[in-house]
């Protein structure tokens, strides 16, 4: 076991994946000498050379499109998108090619591509640097989508994503890049819990909190705070957003009967909508109150000085906990 930041854990994941399989390539903007703007690819080019750690021209469609071609030639490209807000120029290649090539070719072509995206807000950044685009990919059939919340998962799930023969969009919460945690590097990714499984991050009995990424940390904080008021929250770290591990989710909801979903992304047709809909479909008769969503508002990501009003914090989660527990809350008596 070693103490690593999440950024370093991902770096180790890349290093070991490259060492183990000569077909693994890393490509993106500024990932070579600079080691990426978050240093996630630090020293990889030194170690594996510029043929395997490729500084690309500044064009995201080009990066993903050439990665498709490399995959066709038998490589397993790991693509870095520099920031969440810069993935959109690659959207066509992701949606029409990466996601559909296996289906299009009736399984003849595999797309073992991993698309890493430094993700979400709360870091005081400029416009376009704090986006939460995960729902776009969750809605895209043919992709797998995961989001990590701690260094150990970051390490293992990255290796699993790279090993997967399916394309995986892998979200790395920027605000946890420097958070440290214990990491077991010598775990065999094939033996570890698959990336498709959710994890009960904290057991509880009164309310199930469904979340992922950096919000897991916020939810755990909320659970500690709630405990002081005698309320027991069960926090589920979904890890995989597509597919969702509904077995774990449903087991929890059947136990608690009350659900709060929280994420940073906008609410409308977001991942939270899918979670509430699926939980309602699967656990309707166990639900004591309507599931509540605590999400970013349906606004473009606001300026840094105001982002604290957008990214759900502990208090907004607790307010929703009150709501699903039918306790007084901010919406009590409010006519919307």
């Amino acid at each position, binding site marked *: 076991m070693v103490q690593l930041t999440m950024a370093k854990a991902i770096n180790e994941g890349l290093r070991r994946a490259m060492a183990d399989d000569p077909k693994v*390539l890393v490509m993106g903007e500024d990932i070579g000498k600079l080691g990426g703007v978050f240093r996630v690819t630090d020293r990889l080019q030194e170690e594996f050379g510029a*043929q*395997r750690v*490729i500084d*690309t*021209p500044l*064009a995201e*469609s*080009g990066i*993903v*499109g*050439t*990665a*498709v*071609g*490399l*995959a*066709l*030639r*038998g*490589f397993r490209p790991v693509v870095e998108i520099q920031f969440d807000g810069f993935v959109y*120029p690659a959207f*066509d*290649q992701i949606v*029409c*090619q990466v996601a*559909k*090539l*296996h*289906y*299009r*070719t*009736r*399984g*003849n*072509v*595999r*797309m073992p591509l991993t698309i890493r995206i430094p993700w979400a807000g709360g870091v005081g950044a400029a416009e376009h640097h704090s986006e939460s685009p995960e729902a776009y990919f969750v809605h895209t*059939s*043919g992709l*797998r989508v995961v989001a990590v919340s701690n260094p150990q998962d970051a390490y293992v799930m990255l290796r699993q994503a790279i090993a*997967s*023969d*399916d394309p995986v969009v892998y979200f790395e919460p920027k605000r946890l890049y420097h958070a440290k945690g214990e990491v077991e590097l010598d775990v065999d990714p094939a033996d570890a819990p698959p990336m*498709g499984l959710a994890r009960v991050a904290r057991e509880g009995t009164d309310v199930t909190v469904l979340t992922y990424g950096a919000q897991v940390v916020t939810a755990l904080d909320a659970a500690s705070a709630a405990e002081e008021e005698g309320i027991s929250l069960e926090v589920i770290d979904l890890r995989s957003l*597509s*597919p*969702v*591990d*509904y077995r774990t989710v449903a087991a929890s909801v059947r136990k608690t009967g009350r659900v709060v979903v929280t994420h940073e992304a906008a609410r409308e047709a977001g991942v939270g909508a899918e979670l509430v809909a699926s939980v309602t479909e699967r656990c309707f008769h166990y639900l004591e109150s309507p599931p509540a969503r605590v999400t970013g508002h349906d606004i473009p990501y606001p300026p840094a000085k105001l982002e604290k009003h957008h990214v759900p914090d502990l208090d907004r989660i607790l307010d929703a906990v009150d709501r699903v527990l039918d306790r007084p809350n901010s919406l009590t008596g409010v006519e919307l």
Partner: protein
Amino acid sequence: MVHTLNPTADPVTDVDDVARLLTPAGERVADPDLQQWIEDVDTAAIQRLYRDMVLLRRIDAEGVALQRQGQVGLWPPCQGQEATQIGTARALRADDFAFPSYRETGVVYARGGKPSDYVLAWRGEGHSTYDPFELHTATQQIIIGAQSLHAVGYAMGVQRDGGDQVAAAYFGDGATSQGDVNEAMVFASSFGAPVVFVCTNNQWAISEPVTVQARFPIAGRAPGFGIPSMRVDGNDVLACLAAMRWAVDHARQGRGPAFLEAVTYRMGPHTTSDDPSRYRDKDEVDAWRRRDPIDRVEALLRAEGAFDEDFAAQVAADADALAAEVREAAMGAVTRPALSIFDAVYAEPHTGIDEQRAAYAAYLDGFATEREG
């Protein structure tokens, strides 16, 4: 480099300002750049090219006919473009990798396509037919220009595993406006990737004349990206073969990407759904008919005494046989079972798909039971 640059040409695209080895009348002419690349092409080889083009035209005619009869949903005719498709594709080695678009029926043919490969996707039986790794040919691309990047990536892969294959990216004149095609040139040039860009300038992108995309010759773009480029008569199969051999050789020697603009004409509608009478004159089509790529090879072969009745009859018989097979492949197609729609969404097990497949299976079962009951 001079610091003031002016456009490389007048703002017109003269279709006769092309490299050529065979005139529209079927006369051999010399071209200093192309000559050397077809020195081995003898009369028998020209006969084979002729046969390829005739067979391709026949496949194409059959596609149109099948669409009229409702046997395929749509057909994108390639009539008029046979020389471009056959000439360039025949310059590739079997283990090179081609990235054609929807209209490159002739590329699929030249790469070894089966009769069913031409029609089953247009019939709606599947999104693709052949296995790309068997034909070393990607599924024909529908998203305009997207495949150009795949070809560059493939070529980057070749560089990385030490192969000597070449990737060939096919796209149209319209496609040159897409960001992807331009990014493909940037990446190819930046990495010196062994890729050949083949732009089929057939004068039209559906209803838009090429001048909407480019007021200057398309071949003039690549050099600005550092890519050598050639503008060739796309109705001259010898020129297409020669130019492609030059380009492929350039790439295979590790000298980086190359670009071809094949100047040709889409004789038919964009697809069988299209009505070109709304946007172009019959005169233009007639003028191009006089530049027919097959006729000029026939004239050449005749002049060389290599086009006798036997040969013509044999080619016609081969075309008939192939057309019959194509027709049979379409009409005899068996639609896959309902639940196959859930196949190959993912390569590995996926709980979401498994659940939806099971639910839909139960739904279909219910129907069966109801009907039985």
